[in-house]
């Protein structure tokens, strides 16, 4: 069954008519061709598909598009000019916080949210704070270092 819905994606109003079962992730990827949002498990565990819904991180694979009428959706593409995200990306580059890059968009969005809530986290707080984002490559050490560096750089910015 199809339903119409109006929402905002990366600051752009979108009006569409979609199958009621269409997930937000599939809507972003298939209809809007925003492919920075990756699908790692499609059951809300791995965190690769994390986007912001009204500013809060959410799993786009288990959010239904039709339930998001009026919502503001932000993907990694929508944060290209975000100063905090630029600092976080540079820190991930400097501290080798990524390998294959598949978990990276979700990891970056969760990091931005973590540092917003906890500007000076301890290493343990980073590990706890990112425990909803799985990475199979890095063993997380580079990621933790990157987040701690990003926290410092954001404080200095």
């Amino acid at each position: 069954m199809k339903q119409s819905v109006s929402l905002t994606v990366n600051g752009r109003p979108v009006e569409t008519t979609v199958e009621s079962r269409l997930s937000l992730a599939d809507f972003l990827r298939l209809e809007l061709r925003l492919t920075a949002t990756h699908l790692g498990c499609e059951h809300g565990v791995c965190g690769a598909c994390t986007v912001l819904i009204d500013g809060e991180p959410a799993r786009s694979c288990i959010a239904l598009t039709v339930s998001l009428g009026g919502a503001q959706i932000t993907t990694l593409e929508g944060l290209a000019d975000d100063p905090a995200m630029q600092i976080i990306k540079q820190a991930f580059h400097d501290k080798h916080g990524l390998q294959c890059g598949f978990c990276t968009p979700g990891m970056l969005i969760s990091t931005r949210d973590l540092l917003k809530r906890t500007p000076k986290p301890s290493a343990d707080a980073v590990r706890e704070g990112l425990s909803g984002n799985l990475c199979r490559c890095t063993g997380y050490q580079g990621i933790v270092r990157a987040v701690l560096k990003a926290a410092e750089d954001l404080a200095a910015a």
Partner: protein
Amino acid sequence: MNHSDTKQGIGAAVKRNEDERLLNGQGTYLADLEIPGTLEAAFIRSPVAHARLGAVKVPSEYSHHVFLAADLDFAHPIVAATDDPQFQSTKQFALAKDKVRFVGEMIAVCIAPTRAQAEDIAQSCELELDELPALWDMDVATAPDAPLIHEHWRDNVYLKTDVSLGDLERARKDATISLSKSLSMGRHGAVPLECRGVLAHRDRRLNELTVYSSTQFPHVLRTCISRAIDLPESQVRVIAPDVGGGFGAKGNFSPEELTIAALAMKLDQPIRWIEDRRENLIASPHAREHRYDVTVHANNDGLILGLEAMIRVDAGAYSVWPWTAAMEAGMVVGILPGPYHVPAYAAKSQSICTNKTPMGPYRGVGRTGACFAMDVMIDALARELHLDPADVRLLNLIKPEDMPYQSITGKQYDSGDYPEAARQALAAIDIDAIRSRQATGEKDDRLIGFGMSCYTEQTAHGTAEWVSRGLPVVFGYEPALARLTPDGKLILHVGIQNHGQGLETTLAQVANEELGIAVADVVVRHGDSSVSPYGMGTFGSRSMTMAGGAVSVACGQLADKVKRIGAHLLQTTADAVTLSDGRVHTETASVALNEVAEAATLHPERLPEGEEPGLDISAVYEPKRSTGAFSYATHACVMAVDPGTGEMEILDYVVVHDCGRMVNPMIVEAQVVGGVAQGLGTALYEEIPYDNNGQPLSSTFLDYMIPGCAEVPDVRMLHIETPSPHTKYGIKGLGEGGAISPPAAVVNALNDALKSLGADITQTPVTPLRVLEAIESGAVSPL
């Protein structure tokens, strides 16, 4: 991204070229590709472990959307056999014919504009299955009255092997202790975060079947597809786009690749399949399920006199191409003695066929199991003799003065100081402090224990190794085509595939070493059978050694030519110039690479007499000896256990590692840590158990746990650099090593912690429940 490093050659911690696109969400993975008109595929997979396959009922409205084995009968089955005449081989068809042999085996493929619609079609079909007994475990499959999974076989064993080397009789006689144990590792998956995927379409202009696959070896896959559907290789192109992790699971020729390629060809229609996580856990090749019965013969000092082992591997229902179902057991037999001097050795192995998902290569391959068996035995021996396990290890480790060392199984360990790695690890973890802390006891009543493990890892296996395994392909070399463009930038076309290893950077560092060109000015093109000479791909800790060697040779030859041309432009001779900072220098003048390149490409009249135009150099590299470069390490860890709940915590983890000359220490460390995280998954978390109907019991991330950020400790790392005498720059492979030792180190630490309770953990993954069971059985019959 801002690059600030000045030194960029071998040994520099250069930041990665590939980061920018990945950080900006511009990585392009299989599911991100856009080929107009692509239909999406969903497979109907067997819901049962073992059955005769009757009719598949397809609703008439979907008759043109569902395809069965008969529709693809022009595709040859996948057959992966060793050259051992005793090996019983399997034929795996694109889609199951007549019979299904594991839960997840493909029966039909449904296509539709979206995956959701394809799944709806799959749901609407009905299967007629006449169930047969499920041979869900090695013991069940090898019971005397077990039915045969492949009807024409003698028994349900792919291959049995039996070797006896050295004077074992004497070892038995001289031994003052002969200790036997049974050990086992759980079955699990490789679990890259991006699942597998394939997209195939026919390019009508080129008359070429283009197959995009999330694969680790595009050229080899091209050969497979060409042979399987009888197309000339010139009419098949395989492209691996960005690949979101592989770890071995994407280095096979899979029936999914065969089906999608064959169907796209048959229908002249672009078709894509994206594996979902459930398929990934139940149908991607599995790993690790080994059982060991080991006896170690030793004297009272703990000196090993002889080793005997029975190794059984649950290889699943089909033999995976090209590695074969005998790969795991074969590697274990060859490397079980590991870094220890073992003068007498006997090993029997069985690679057993069961109604389970086929077993394929996974980071570490047989070595993780072999290291687990050997190192857990050494700790058991030390406990039995009331010796410190570290002392027993140091007594038995091969000495640096014995390098190069030929192991009892004929492996040529090329170089290194194994005891030094062990000593450094003991010092770094402060073994004395741990022992006194153990004597004092913990305030929270937890028990703490120390464990260590040493391995040696054959990497960059060359021609001799693969020939000895009798595989369908001998992966002995790697090519590189180095191409300087008229603007003075470099493109490296290589046959490996980069999926997280940083090869777009480290190969550029090799170019920098030879040509003095900035890493940022080097583009590495890989993963496409049409852009590079034939190459073997990325697996077996080989790419840096092999492709690095090839890039070095090609860039070295290119450097000679650049010097000749640059010297001519500077009106001097080639021996009077050097290359650095992207320029050709004399002591007083210089010319930029782009001027040299322009002369060679656009202005041949500027070239010295007799110099051929063009700046493309193709080279092939093989190590001087093809018996492999051996990396090694010692892992040491401290674990705390709550004996009341079985809950465990890693308090400290140290790795002392030697992978020869390090091209990029930042990347080396990250590869090791990533491997350790996966090894901790094997040790503590990851398992796909099967019930006695042959149903896999963990098929989502809710019941299959990969280590998260809070589970993996901060790994402390120390490096030793012993160059390999056989390879360019002395590089040794390192991709897999981190995943080898963690199960042994963790189990040894737990058994050390629980020593006073008589508990004896012999099985991975070590869950809290298994800790409690070990404590309980220890209390019933204390050692």
